[in-house]
């Protein structure tokens, strides 16, 4: 690192937004997101950032302001957590359907009831089908880098991007990271220009009522109905994986960091057992992997998933096919079924002939501590008993760290 600073994850996010020259910031306070918006309002008040700060009365309105600003061709940002994200859920679908390149940081926190201000991933997981691109950062450097890259991605594919990072574990801890150079950022992220921006010079009616069938416009050109428009979103979301990789390459050439924008595998090449996780827990697992390899002679690796939506099925399957076992650890689930990520991994592997056996672990809900020692022990036990266990039993999620 040439010019590292030591700051919190929330400040790293705010610095990225400042560097990105976002022009409209709308936010409503919610723990543990609040310091992001405090920092942004401070930067604006101090004249260190030239932007409009709109102190809205709710998260629903925060996204409403972003929708308005982005529709008028101005770069917009907000941040939230937990129930705040859920309160704007309708707006998330709207922003994606309207194809607005809004960037939002989600500081992941458990969903009430009962109330919990601590970390898990249920907020982001519950919004996975909104049509937003979902990125998961696992350290402070990734928060600042990926938030910047998110603006570029959103504006290239015209799909909003949610940058997720763990509440408290990342948001409130202080770690060294290197802020990208402002001049290089300007070269990396050109000003936002939107050809359908609202303007009286070229009036357009945006997000009007559509009909089930495609219809001719006044010039006799056939225009898609709702289904065609939504199909475009799905197709272009799929293509955004490649765009994200290209952006990362460019970022790497300018800033010297990156190289793993979609997945970040660690010691997976020869691994019999691959762990899959998202966010800070994936970094925690590196210690576990090293110990299992060194003390127990187990060939284990950890695959960090950085991009959750669109789901990079083929890229994941390529890494996991050669493993005998895949252990999916996650902080969110589809209640009554299994871990959401687990289900996605399973479906990604289905088309391939060599399917590893899958195991699902639910950990850390509502901030329940995830001691590295317990990750090590559960992994060790799972590896020892794997071959004998009937698959139906393995398929049900195992809850780690229950106290009752």
């Amino acid at each position, binding site marked *: 690192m040439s010019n590292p600073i030591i700051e919190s994850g929330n400040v790293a996010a705010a610095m990225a937004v400042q560097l990105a020259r976002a*022009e*409209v910031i*709308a936010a409503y306070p919610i723990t543990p997101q609040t310091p992001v918006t405090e920092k942004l309002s401070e930067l604006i008040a101090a004249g260190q950032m030239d*932007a*409009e700060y*709109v*102190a*809205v*009365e*709710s998260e*629903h*309105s*925060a*996204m*409403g*302001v*972003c*929708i*308005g*600003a*982005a*529709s*008028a*061709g*101005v770069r*917009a940002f907000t941040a939230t957590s937990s129930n705040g994200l859920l309160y704007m859920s*309708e*707006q998330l679908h*709207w922003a994606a359907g309207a194809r607005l390149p809004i960037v939002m940081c989600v500081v992941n926190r458990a969903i009430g009831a009962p109330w919990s201000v601590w970390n898990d991933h249920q907020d982001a997981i519950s919004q996975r089908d909104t049509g937003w691109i979902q990125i998961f950062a696992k350290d402070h450097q990734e928060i600042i880098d990926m938030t910047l890259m998110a603006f570029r991605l959103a504006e290239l594919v015209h799909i909003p991007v949610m940058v997720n990072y763990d509440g408290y574990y990342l948001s409130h801890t202080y770690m060294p990271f290197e802020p990208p150079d402002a001049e290089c950022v300007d070269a990396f992220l050109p000003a936002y220009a939107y050809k359908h921006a*609202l*303007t*009286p010079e*070229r*009036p*357009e*009616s*945006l*997000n*009007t*009522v*559509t*009909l089930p069938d495609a*219809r*001719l*416009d*006044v010039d006799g050109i056939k*225009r898609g109905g709702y289904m065609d428009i939504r199909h475009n979103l799905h197709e272009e979301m799929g293509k955004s994986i490649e765009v994200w990789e290209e952006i990362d390459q460019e970022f790497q050439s300018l800033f010297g960091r990156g190289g793993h924008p979609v997945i970040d595998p660690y010691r997976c090449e020869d691994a019999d057992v691959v762990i899959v996780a998202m966010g800070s827990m994936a970094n925690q697992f590196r210690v576990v992997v090293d110990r299992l390899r060194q003390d127990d002679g187990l060939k284990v690796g950890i695959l960090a998933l950085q991009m959750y939506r669109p789901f990079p099925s083929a890229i994941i399957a390529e890494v996991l096919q050669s493993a005998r076992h895949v252990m999916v650890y996650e902080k969110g689930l589809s209640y009554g079924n299994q871990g959401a990520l687990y289900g996605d991994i399973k479906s990604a592997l289905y088309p391939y002939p060599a399917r590893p056996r899958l195991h699902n672990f639910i950990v850390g809900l509502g901030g329940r501590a995830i001691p590295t020692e317990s990750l090590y022990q559960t992994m060790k036990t799972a590896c020892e008993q794997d071959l004998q266990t009937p698959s139906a039993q393995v398929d049900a999620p195992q809850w780690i760290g229950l106290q009752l």
Partner: protein
Amino acid sequence: MKTNPRTTVLNLTEEEFVYPGNRACSGCGLSILYRVGVKALGRDCIFVVPPSCLTVMQGLYPIAATQMPVLNGTFASTAAIATGVKAAMRRLGRETQVVAWAGDGGTSDIGIQALSGALERGEDIIYICYDNEAYMNTGVQRSGTTPQGSLTTTTPFSGKSEVGKDLPAIIAAHNPAYLATCSASYPLDFHDKLLKAKQIKGLKYLHVQTPCPPGWGIEEHMTVALGRAAVETGLFDLYEIENGRMQLSGPSQQLLARPALRPVREYLQLQTRFKALGDEQADALQAQVDRRWAGYRDRFK
């Protein structure tokens, strides 16, 4: 502030901003308002519209009846979206007016929180609520502003038992830069007030009573007569609030000179929505109007 000459049919701009053949019902009060309102606003405007009859009237993709730029948004966030558009205009250095145009449900019920926030922040936008006194776009369900005794599909048989919200009073409590009540039956008064609103910084709120033939149970040719009856019976008063000072305006102000108003029954009896309203309720309504107007006569004589 520039004082504009009173709008008349002779000085109203001839340019039309809405194409003929839109999807409004025949006799729609909103279509009168929209046609005349846009003439006052002019082309340097961006509209923000939540789900409402206006969404449908402005056209279904890929055909638009309106010639204005429009951002359709979610039901609850009209004032927030307008805030975002206005913030963008400031960033772009443009004077473009941002006009939120919503119905009574979108304003008094689901949209009131976002509007209250925008009022408190003093957003520099024009907010027009066309109040047809029920959820008309979904087929006449009761709203917060539906008057007591009115039949709707969710207050069948005996009508709404509660009194409607006094939405302009709620807005007035936020001290907006400008507040005016208007009627679709007096479109030129609406035009005058919009011309004034355009010159004022801050949040300008226009509340417009808008007769709805299918929702109110009236003949299509009675739209204008109904709105006029509401004003002339003293049931719906036209006024302005500027710098915290309320003043009757236009047609309502002229009523002060008359010895008596038309009885409220003349208004009620024209509509099938009030057919379940009993004599006692009509008398109570008359007494309420009489009290309010006695107050006006004292205050504004």
